[in-house]
């Protein structure tokens, strides 16, 4: 595809630093690309390092080696406030947001754009309203976050990320706690936002079905081997999906597009 690249990594090493004792390398070298207007799903088994990669790209943990280029500029050159206007995140962290309303939560997304006291201007209110509309939760704007269902709560956090007006939105397992209809709804929503608003969206998930149905690109992450990247149809055709998921007495059936026991 010819869309402009939002994020590129070159020989990106991810993992954790353990003070002076060295580091735990989760993956030594990743060459990745995210383009605008596309939904990318990161798949991988538990322990493959999906969360580490997501947290690295979110700027929450520093890369061990290699380079991340964001909108044509090296990550290291970003100030924190500039970064917060470029990458919006939705995480699985527990929050204490139950006591604020959905509108107040989404308005927190304007933090990088507002002044010292966080006072919202007319434009900020417009952006908040648009974000609420976009995820289809405007009717709950005055409800407390505590009174939302899991699906609605996830949508509210997506709206918060949209209100940040970032070209790149990264979500860590946004469908993990959702029932099947909310899951499909969330994926369809994220795909629509990527396509209509021209944003680049990256999410990690265990939901292979939804990823195959909705993603423009898949990233298949495994410990130490290079990341397998491509559109769902490409990865189906060249047998990558089959190789990736066929292990421990399981097999990926390309016809049925699902994992079956042998």
């Amino acid at each position, binding site marked *: 595809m010819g869309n402009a690249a939002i994020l590129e990594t070159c020989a990106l090493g991810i993992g954790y630093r353990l003070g002076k004792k060295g580091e735990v390398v989760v993956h030594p070298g990743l060459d990745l690309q995210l383009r605008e207007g596309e939904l990318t799903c990161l798949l991988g088994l538990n322990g493959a390092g999906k969360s580490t990669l997501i*947290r690295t790209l*979110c*700027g*929450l943990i520093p890369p061990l080696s290699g380079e991340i280029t964001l909108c044509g500029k090296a990550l290291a050159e970003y100030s*924190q*406030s500039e*970064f*917060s*206007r470029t*990458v*919006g*995140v939705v*995480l699985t*962290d*527990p*929050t*204490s*947001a*139950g*006591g*604020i*309303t959905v509108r*107040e*939560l989404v308005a*927190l*997304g304007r*933090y*990088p754009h*507002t002044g*010292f*006291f*966080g006072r919202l201007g007319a434009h900020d209110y417009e952006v908040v309203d648009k974000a609420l509309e976009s995820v289809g939760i405007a009717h709950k704007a*005055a409800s*407390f*976050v*505590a*009174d939302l269902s899991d699906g609605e709560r996830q949508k509210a956090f997506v709206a918060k990320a949209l209100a*940040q007006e970032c070209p790149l939105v990264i979500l860590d397992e946004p469908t993990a706690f959702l029932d099947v209809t909310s899951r499909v709804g969330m994926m369809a929503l994220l795909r629509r936002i990527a396509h209509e608003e021209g944003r680049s969206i990256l999410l990690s998930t265990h939901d292979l079905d939804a990823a195959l149905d909705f993603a423009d690109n898949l990233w298949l992450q495994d410990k130490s081997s290079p990341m397998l990247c491509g559109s769902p149809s490409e990865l189906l055709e060249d047998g990558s999906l089959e190789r990736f998921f066929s292990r421990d007495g399981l097999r990926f059936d390309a016809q049925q597009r699902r994992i079956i026991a042998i």
Partner: protein
Amino acid sequence: MSARTRTTAITVTAIAVILLFAANLVFGAVRIPIRDVLGILAGSFDGRPSWSEIVLHSRLPQAVTALLAGASLACAGLMLQTLFHNPLAGPSILGISDGANLGVAIVMIYFASTSYISSILAAFVGAAAILVVIIWFSRKLRNNVMLLIVGIMVGYLASSLISILNFRASADKVHQFVMWGMGDFSAVSVEKLPVYAAVVLAGLVLALLLTKPLNTLLLGESYASNLGVNVRRARLLILLCTGILTAATTAFCGPVSFIGLAVPHIARLLLGSSNHKALLPLTILSGAGIALLCNLITVLPGQGGVLPLSAVTPLVGAPVIIYVIVNRRNIQYFN
């Protein structure tokens, strides 16, 4: 949160604070008619000089002290609860009050000092020492729950040192220290009040300036960081601010329990919201009101004497905490 709820909650609380402040001037261990209290305040009273003395040099500074102490402890409690994502955090939980306590114990028992100034300085030094330890750990430990546990442990260490000091001390010194440990709003004289007020007001202003980062911290540190908050600096400023408020109040009034823990809950329940833009001012107001109420309760026995403050604050605070814990499933800010 609608703007109307916010305005109503703040107005009603402000009126309650004014009424409680007035009640603190009118009621006390000595019965003085309201008309005469008003006369004394207006400067038109020419009756017994002892009454003027009581109202102007005992009740008035005591009421102002209660107002400031309640406001500062409640404000510190709210900031700690938000920072640690823990509804049971309070100024005493990080060991800051224990540090102040230890400082006073050392000068009172070990150095056998009876000077009031030395107790205050010792409390400041003790609280600041614990604060430095906590800030040092906060740089080491990125996890707030772990930091909270370290705070509790440091508090235990301070208490245990106090017990050892008590064990070695003579009975009258222990008695003197125990009396200070009761907590008291009457210990701040008219001369010392401006110093105390200045420190507390500086702390409260700093807290109000931290409204924006406090709101993002409701989402946790990762979200706050993604929203452009320098989390490490925000955490340091919040700890510094709570430290100043707690140390000053403990130094001037002795340890006052439960206000810092319970009042943020009262304010959240009144307001129905955790948005610090309204919650922080309301918590400060409610803290002032609750402290004035507690001070009023201490003089209920009338001519029979004054109840210790440390016996009254748990009476008001503990039921609130029990109510909040029992009803936590129905309270929004827990979910």
